[in-house]
């Protein structure tokens, strides 16, 4: 730190002076705490990865990569494979992302592009953010008691009429991928919508003026200018929503059917990694726990990879066409 305080300058009658020793100490202390907090987060992530990795190591050396491609989960025979869970995790999250993404971005457009009076838009936004406050288990119950009975006639009609399409290849008997993905879509809606709203709000007013000044209609302005300008922010919203869907546990454990099968059908029961972990841990013996730890490590890896890809894509999109605002 600079210690020269220009003491030789005659400063009689002036209130200007160097910061006190206390000011400097506070500055240093604050910087230290900020560094410590940042380092703690990093250490925590590393610790979790190492801890889970360590617990998963015995299973990894026993089952190897075959664990990722095998479809059996049998405690009695000691056969463990998580391909159906990987499939179910990615498939249900992707479906949720498509549904929740479309609705979330549409809601964000509705709330930011002068469709609603400012005050009403704020009320709407609060209501949508309140969706995030509903506990996962309540979503699960709602899915079981409301959504599945509601969907069943439609699903079975679709299966009857369009059964040749793989997506409708089975009938819906109870829990299944479709209802799980729908609930998941609702659960990621607040994330996608509110981050997209922020992204669209950040588009400077002068950009909107430029669009209308060129003689765009409202939809041309939104689709050709506003959305591309807010692109990286909306992408961030979708990545975060997808990440949330990948890790969601309780509602899925209740709705997806916990069945080890790989099917394109929306009405077939399936399983996800998070649901497998949640439903199997309570009664697992030491051998199964080791396999579950391996599964947990895979889930962690998937979410980390998805988020890393998302960040990279966002960074690329930002670097290409956005300047400082």
């Amino acid at each position, binding site marked *: 730190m600079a210690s020269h305080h220009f003491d030789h300058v005659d400063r009689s009658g002036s209130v200007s002076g160097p910061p006190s020793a206390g000011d400097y100490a506070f500055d240093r202390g604050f910087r230290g705490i900020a560094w410590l907090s940042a380092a703690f987060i990093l250490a925590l992530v590393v610790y979790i990865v190492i801890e889970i990795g360590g617990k998963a190591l015995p299973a990894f050396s026993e089952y190897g990569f075959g664990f990722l491609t095998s479809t059996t989960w049998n405690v009695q025979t000691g056969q463990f494979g998580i391909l159906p869970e990987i499939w179910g995790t990615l498939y249900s999250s992707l479906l949720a992302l498509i549904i929740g993404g479309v609705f979330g971005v549409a809601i964000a457009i509705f709330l930011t592009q*002068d469709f609603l009076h400012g005050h009403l838009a704020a009320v709407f936004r609060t209501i949508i953010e309140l969706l995030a406050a509903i506990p996962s288990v309540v979503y699960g119950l709602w899915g079981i008691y409301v959504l599945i009975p509601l969907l069943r006639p439609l699903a079975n009609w679709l299966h009857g009429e369009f059964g040749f399409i793989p997506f409708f290849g089975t009938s819906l008997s109870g829990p299944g991928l479709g209802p799980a993905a729908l609930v998941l879509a609702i659960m990621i809606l607040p994330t996608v919508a509110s981050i997209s709203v922020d992204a669209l709000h950040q588009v*400077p007013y*002068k*950009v*909107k*003026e*430029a*669009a*209308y*000044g*060129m*003689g*765009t*209609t409202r939809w*041309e302005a939104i689709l*050709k*200018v506003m959305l*591309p*300008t807010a*692109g990286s922010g909306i992408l961030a919203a979708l990545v975060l929503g997808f990440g949330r869907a990948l890790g969601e546990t309780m509602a899925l454990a209740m709705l997806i059917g916990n069945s080890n099968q790989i099917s394109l059908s929306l009405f077939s029961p399936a399983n996800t990694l998070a649901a497998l972990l949640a439903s199997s841990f309570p009664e697992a013996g030491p051998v199964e726990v080791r396999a579950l730890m391996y599964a947990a490590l895979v889930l962690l890896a998937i979410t980390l990879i998805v988020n890393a890809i998302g960040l990279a894509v966002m960074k690329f999109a930002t670097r*290409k*066409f*956005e*300047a400082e605002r």
Partner: protein
Amino acid sequence: MNATAEMTAAGAASANAPARNNIVMDCQIDKVFYGDFLAVRASTVPIEKNKITGFIGPSGCGKSTVLRSLNRMNDLIPIFRFEGKVTYHGQDIYDKKVDPVVVRRYIGMVFQQPNPFAMSIYDNVAFGLRLNGFKGNLDERVEKALKGAACWNEVKDKLKNSGLSLSGGQQQRLCIARAIATEPDVLLMDEPCSALDPIATRRVEELMLELKEKYTIALVTHNMQQATRVADTTAFFGVDISQGSRTGYLVEMGPTRQIFEDPREKLTGEYVRGEFS
């Protein structure tokens, strides 16, 4: 009713009223409101073909509001209300049957802050062409517009780069290129040089003088030297604070030389001599 009589009625008589048939746009404002606030009162501002009409006046005099009324940009502000009419080739653009989107396609605008879109330089210029469903040679028109805006040489090797990667002056010329690519009839420029350095300002001013050969330009400027350098006709707006709020109005309008050297109104003389701002 002839032009002179109309302007007398609006309280802004001009001895040098331009010939009627040269007037591309005739802005006859009765009242302009933002909510309850009367922003501009009775003012008549005719815009002549292939001329640069400069709008000058102290801040809050409504010169930007008047300019933005000419292509209905103010419609973006929900509380904006326009009373009067703006005829464009004889048609009132505030008529209920007129879609503001169509108005803005014929009457282009360049803004105070450079506002290129977050897309490539090429796509910025091609934006209006694509919007209007242009089917011809896009490359050719983009090049022509960029040359017209005097920035082709600087950007021809980096057309794929973001428009936002350019300097402020280049961005503003890119925005001019974007505005003239579709060859609109009238170009409205709202203090286009206020965010630019003196050199970039000079270049944009030279550009305006070239552009008026093909287009009709209305220019808002807070820089009186700029008005004397480029404007053929100058409209001076003042602020009336007698009613307890600040209402803008046209004080006088005439050939630029007359406004600056021999103004009819005392207020105009005081303003152009820099006695208030």
